[in-house]
């Protein structure tokens, strides 16, 4: 019994420790990881309200333009006025705005209190896009059970809307018309045909592309009305060599978008990481995502979620770039916000209306994602971001008494940061990074060698702390298996108490007696 009481006491204690305030949204943004870091990746913006859906697709196609072709199943026949070319900048802007970020804090010097100046630096990762020569599209008259419902040119794209009766015919038609359809595409096309979907078929009109001087493919935006809040990803798997990364920017009115047929989960966030990560932040995030994904390969990851409604004053915190303005939202396909750019007294935004941005990151392949992505819009308006915290130790003279304690804290913190780094990314933090902590250990040795005795000084408590096994275990319980917040531990405690109370009650009532 004493043992149980002890355990309960320990859990209580652990809760007190872990409930200490997490970093609130603040600090200075210094670096960001952009989506272009990932290979084989594409981005999609979905703006959706009341079934009216605007999808903008950006492609990372790197080959010659004449080899580019895209087949997208769409729920209805799309006329020319439903298609437009969007500006690639909108993807860059949303990407920059919502990407994972590092924030930094400067420790004040405990020996000479003063304001520290924040240093800000940014990093950008550019994606190379290739230029390409030209060729023309071949038309064919044969009957494949395929009907060209619409045919038009928008910007540099030749677009066909096909309606097919059977997948075999459609596959042959596409191959005969020089669309590089992968072997086995028929199997993937079939369900869409049976589901009465039309096919939006795109090729590059090389003359137009040349005329306009476009070397890269601009995003295509299509508008349609549908009950289905989904993205067809299965077609893309037919020619996929392996995993593909897809970034979905979902713009809705009510709140966060989540997948209904896959688990939606958040990427690890608000972790303290070592200073040197700043220089390798892109790499850091790629490895972090990779490690997270390996633990849960059939999940959809939330990288960002924010209420951009005009009445929400804080549109990001910290802001990596300026939050989207009216023109950006329009460009992204949002049709339900009102223009407020002309108003004299702008308060929070140059538009009127509710918008919630969810950035989802999906790494999919044929085996882990057997179904297309289905979504729902939830009323959840919480703010979420991938945020990693960097602390700069104080500079200058640290030889005062407070400085000694401070240096010990720094050593402890830096040890933690290295553990976090290893935990998040799987990087080996033993070798080359050992100096990260060692530097401050040495400083303690150097500064306080004289009075560095048996550990009975005022820091005895800190010295006695590394009972790591126990702390870790408690931390894990209280953190819900190392996941999110202190809730789980408290829940279990509450639940055990409830069960105990009821068991006791039932026993008193004679209802739980042993036979």
């Amino acid at each position, binding site marked *: 019994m004493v043992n149980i009481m002890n355990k309960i006491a320990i859990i209580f204690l652990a809760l007190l420790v872990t409930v200490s305030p997490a970093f609130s949204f603040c600090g200075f943004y210094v670096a960001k990881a952009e989506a272009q870091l990932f290979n084989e990746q594409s981005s999609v913006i979905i703006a959706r309200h009341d079934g009216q859906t605007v999808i903008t697709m950006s492609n990372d196609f790197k080959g010659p333009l004449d080899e580019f072709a895209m087949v997208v199943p769409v729920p209805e026949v799309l006329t020319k006025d439903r298609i437009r070319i969007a500006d690639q900048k909108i993807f860059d802007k949303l990407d920059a705005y919502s990407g994972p970020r590092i924030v930094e804090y400067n420790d004040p010097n405990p020996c000479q209190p003063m304001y520290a100046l924040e240093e800000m630096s940014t990093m950008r990762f550019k994606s190379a896009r290739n230029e390409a020569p030209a060729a023309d599209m071949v038309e064919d008259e044969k009957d494949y059970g395929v009907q060209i419902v619409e045919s038009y040119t928008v910007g540099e794209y030749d677009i066909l809307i096909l309606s097919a009766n059977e997948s075999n015919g459609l596959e042959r038609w596409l191959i005969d018309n020089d669309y590089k359809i992968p072997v086995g595409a028929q199997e993937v096309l*079939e369900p869409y045909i049976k589901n009465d979907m039309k096919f939006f078929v795109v090729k590059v009109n090389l003359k137009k592309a040349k005329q306009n001087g476009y070397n890269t493919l601009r995003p295509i935006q299509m508008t349609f009305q549908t009950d289905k*809040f*989904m993205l067809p990803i299965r077609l893309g798997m037919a020619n996929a060599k392996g995993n593909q990364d897809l970034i979905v920017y979902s713009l809705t009115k009510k709140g966060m978008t989540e997948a209904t*047929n896959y688990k939606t989960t958040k990427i690890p966030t608000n972790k303290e990481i070592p200073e040197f990560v700043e220089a390798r932040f892109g790499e850091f995030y790629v490895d972090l995502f990779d490690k997270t994904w390996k633990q849960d390969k059939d999940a959809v990851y939330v990288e960002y979620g924010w209420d951009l409604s005009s009445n929400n004053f804080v549109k990001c915190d910290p802001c990596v770039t300026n939050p989207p303005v009216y023109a950006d939202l329009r460009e992204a396909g949002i049709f339900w916000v009102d223009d407020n750019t002309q108003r004299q007294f702008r308060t929070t935004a140059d538009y009127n209306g509710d918008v919630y941005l969810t950035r989802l990151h999906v790494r999919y392949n044929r085996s882990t994602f057997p179904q297309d992505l289905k*979504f729902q819009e939830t009323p959840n308006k919480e703010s979420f971001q991938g945020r990693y915290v960097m602390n700069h130790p104080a500079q200058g003279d640290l030889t005062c008494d407070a400085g000694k304690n401070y240096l010990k804290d720094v050593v402890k913190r830096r040890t933690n940061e290295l553990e976090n780094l290893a935990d998040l990314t799987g990087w080996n933090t033993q070798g080359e990074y050992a100096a990260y902590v060692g530097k401050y250990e040495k400083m303690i040795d150097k500064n306080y060698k004289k009075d560095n005795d048996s550990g009975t000084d005022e820091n005895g408590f800190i010295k006695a702390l590394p009972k790591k096994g126990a702390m870790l275990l408690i931390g894990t319980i209280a953190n819900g298996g190392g996941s999110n917040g202190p809730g789980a531990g408290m829940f279990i405690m*509450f*639940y055990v108490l409830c069960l105990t109370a009821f068991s006791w009650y039932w*026993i008193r009532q004679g209802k739980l007696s*042993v036979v």
Partner: protein
Amino acid sequence: MSVLTQPTTYTIPNPITWIKKDARHFQIVYLTAFLLFGIFKLGWEADIFKYVAIFTTGLAIQSIGIHFTTKNYTGLKSALITCLGLCLLLNATSIWIFILATVIAIGSKFLIRFKGKHLFNPANIGLVAAILITGQAWVSPGQWGSSVIFIYFLGAAALIVLLKVGRIDTSLAFLGTFSGLVFIKTVLYQGWPLDHFVHYLSNGTLLLFTFFMITDPVTTPRHSTARIIWAAVIGIITFILASEFHVNSAAPIWALIAITPFTIILNKIFKAKQFKW
């Protein structure tokens, strides 16, 4: 020491015997296990206030209800199951919505009664009411992921529970009808590969609904034939909602609430004794 001098009824109950005693004990243990699985293994954001609100409200309302009616406090076990169901399925933006859902869920047991028994499945009406009234609540059908081991665990666990109560017929009738229709449409007609179909069935919310919600002996029809018809109709409605109306979220929950009033008619046509715990 004093324990030894107590009568035998006051000794600590043997857990196995305790579990075998009442099917609800099974349900409590298993649903708790699922909740813990969700929090620890699936990394749900465990919100302490949500759970506290649901359990406190649920048990309080049930206690009040019992106090003014039967005075038989074993009904608290049912309330615990309802609360666990709400914890597992309901998401909301505010703590008050959880409280509202629980009040409606448990309250409906005492307020909406037909011929001496409550009509609606408590967790079901709680969920639906919270979603419709506030517009700030939702169900996340994808929150379970689709780990095969988990499916096995859930299925096996559920079977044990059901075989104890004798309500496996509703589960099988529902799942059989729904999955049969999905299979015909997606695999046979549309030509999706089999894993597309399996993915449909590896949905934690669907299985939770199948094995823990529509098996409630009090709110299902009494006669076994009626139950099978009833469950099959729920399966058909669920299929129509999901595949024709593209209700991505929690179609079975809407189907169940829609079919509930017909339980009365089915009980009139097929006469059988009312279930008692």
